């Protein structure tokens, strides 16, 4: 929670400044303002059917989450304030957490756009791993796939050129630490990591002023992105001493990323690659693969997509996500029906060992305001030598959620 308290201070200071400037502007020009408020209430139940590996861990995790969303738009939508909040209650105290996912002011004019505040940015093209996506910290207690992110304080300036694509400049004044499951939580290491135990390489700690740049363009069937990040990394670096003790900290990194997609007929060819450089670490990682969709195969809209990706990480065993030399395969079924029913099944297999992770994600809308989801992750034949994954080998789970939208 300490992390969040610091975050609130940041938000208050920032928006007091912003609102002073903005109120005067609003007085000058009376414009039509649109307000929208929405909210999602979610009931979740996670069940881990294998006996826990570490003391304190439970089998059943009922949980509740709320996601309020407010936006205010004026100047024909070219100016807005957007807010998305988040709160979850869970049996695991560390998974009981709140966050401001987004709270930012945005202004667009002609070829440029400016965003100030907490925001979420996504970069990349692949499905099984998100290497180049480096701006936001992962909300690691929220989901296993790492796609939930914490709101990142930033100033983002985008510039659209006629012939040279789009340039994005990021100023990132504050680093947010990753959250980890507590004593009662599953999907954790043998030693419970408290996020406050992790220090920083930089003397400025979380206030190190970081920067990032991205260029994105498309030429016919090619979509290409090049990015560079310089600052405190989002991924902590784990160093194990000879006694097996873990020393973990957030290093200052340079990361250059490339993402490329070629969209040719029903084929999507994808590549993501990064080169990360820090004092204690220097490595390359790659994800490459393809997606092919057989569309409307039954004449009723059923699409079947096939996915295959290869994952490589030079860090080998120390790769935090354990995807060092693996193959991902999967299939996406989209029914394109009134309820938007979809199913994604997949598996990741380690090419050097027997370790495999299987997954299933399915969702369907009921009526116009309800949505149900099922997720399953199965850790299969995880080898003892897996530094990271061996901690999760008893953590196969089923997850059900029902959401009501207001």
């Amino acid at each position, binding site marked *: 929670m300490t992390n969040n308290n610091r975050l609130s201070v940041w938000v208050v200071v920032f928006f007091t400044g912003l609102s002073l400037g903005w109120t005067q502007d609003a007085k000058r020009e009376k414009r039509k303002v649109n307000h929208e408020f929405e909210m999602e209430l979610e009931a979740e139940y996670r069940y881990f059917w294998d006996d826990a590996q570490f003391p304190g861990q439970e089998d059943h995790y009922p949980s509740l989450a709320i996601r309020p969303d407010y936006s205010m738009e004026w100047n024909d939508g070219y100016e807005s304030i957007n807010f998305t909040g988040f709160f979850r209650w869970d049996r695991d105290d560390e998974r009981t957490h709140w966050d401001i996912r987004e709270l930012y002011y945005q202004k667009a004019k002609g070829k440029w756009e400016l965003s100030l505040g907490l925001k979420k940015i996504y970069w990349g093209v692949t499905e099984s791993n998100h290497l180049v996506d480096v701006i936001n910290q992962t909300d690691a207690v929220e989901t296993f796939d790492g796609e939930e992110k914490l709101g990142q304080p930033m100033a983002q300036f985008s510039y659209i050129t006629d012939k040279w694509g*789009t340039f994005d400049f990021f100023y990132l004044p504050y680093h947010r630490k990753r959250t980890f499951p507590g004593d009662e939580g599953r999907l954790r290491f043998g030693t419970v990591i408290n996020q406050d135990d992790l220090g920083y390489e930089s003397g400025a700690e979380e206030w190190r002023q970081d920067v990032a740049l991205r260029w994105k363009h498309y030429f016919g069937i090619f979509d290409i992105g090049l990015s560079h990040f310089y600052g405190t990394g989002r991924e902590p670096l784990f160093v194990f001493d000879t006694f097996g003790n873990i020393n973990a900290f957030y290093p200052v990194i340079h990361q250059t990323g490339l993402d490329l997609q070629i969209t040719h*007929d*029903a084929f999507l060819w994808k590549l993501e690659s990064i080169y990360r450089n820090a004092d204690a670490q220097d490595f390359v990682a790659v994800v490459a693969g393809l997606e092919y969709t057989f569309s409307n195969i039954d004449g009723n809209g059923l699409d079947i997509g096939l996915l295959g990706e290869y994952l490589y990480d030079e860090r080998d065993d120390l790769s935090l996500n354990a995807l060092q030399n693996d193959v991902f395969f999967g299939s996406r079924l989209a029914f394109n029906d009134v309820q938007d029913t979809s199913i994604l099944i997949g598996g990741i297999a380690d090419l050097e060992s027997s370790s495999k992770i299987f997954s299933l994600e399915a969702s369907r809308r009921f009526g116009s305001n309800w949505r149900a989801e099922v997720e399953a992750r199965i850790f299969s034949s995880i080898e003892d030598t897996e530094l990271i994954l061996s901690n999760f080998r008893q953590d196969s789970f089923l997850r059900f959620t029902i959401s009501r939208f207001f």
Partner: protein
Amino acid sequence: MLAAAFVGTAVYAQSAEEKGLQIAKAAEKADEGFGSSIVELKMTLKNKNGQTSERFLTTRTLELTEDGDKSLIVFESPKDVKGTATLTYTHKVGADDQWLYLPSIKRVKRISSNNKSGPFVGSEFAYEDLSSQEVEKYAYKFLKEEGDLLVVEQDPVDPKSGYTRRVVTYNKGKGYRLEKIEFYDRKNALLKTLTYNDYKLYKNKFWRALTFNMVNHQSNKETLLKFSDYNFGAELAEEDFTEVALKRAGS
């Protein structure tokens, strides 16, 4: 007089194919110069038992003359997909370019425009029914004329289309606006009928139907589109049809 006589002869000598193409071009020309538009629409899906469900969308269109139009569609409801948006660059020749924005993870994904015949969000409209209607996308054959109504057969050039042909009724007296389209499936059986109603004339030139009704004769399902007033005054530019704008529209 001589010129008029010459034109008259030319029309007389026209084949059904040439006349069909000429009508399609006349319809395109009649709608030229709208610049850009913004419209909100309500889509009502009705199954064969009469049960309905609704979607609300906003569509922005930018007219381009050298290549096909650009469009940006944003979902306002159902609420679980609110903010989902697509950006499409239509091309007169070749596959369209299309990007999808997923608001939950803020991701923009380039998607294949290969899936033309599939249903758009569970409706009776296929993707190809809603994309910009460029003259180059069909081969034409004039069928008949009944007063102001001109009936033309259109055969899709793209083999991935879900139709063998469409039979389109234009209204010559009302700026070549569309009155009806009949869609024939790959087996050449009548699949769907789209009728355009509640026409409104904008800027004394541009006809816009405020109601579309698509009936599927094979499944007995129906989709109704009800449009709000069109806004032709927003003066949208190329920048409003970029990935940056796509993300902004869906946020």
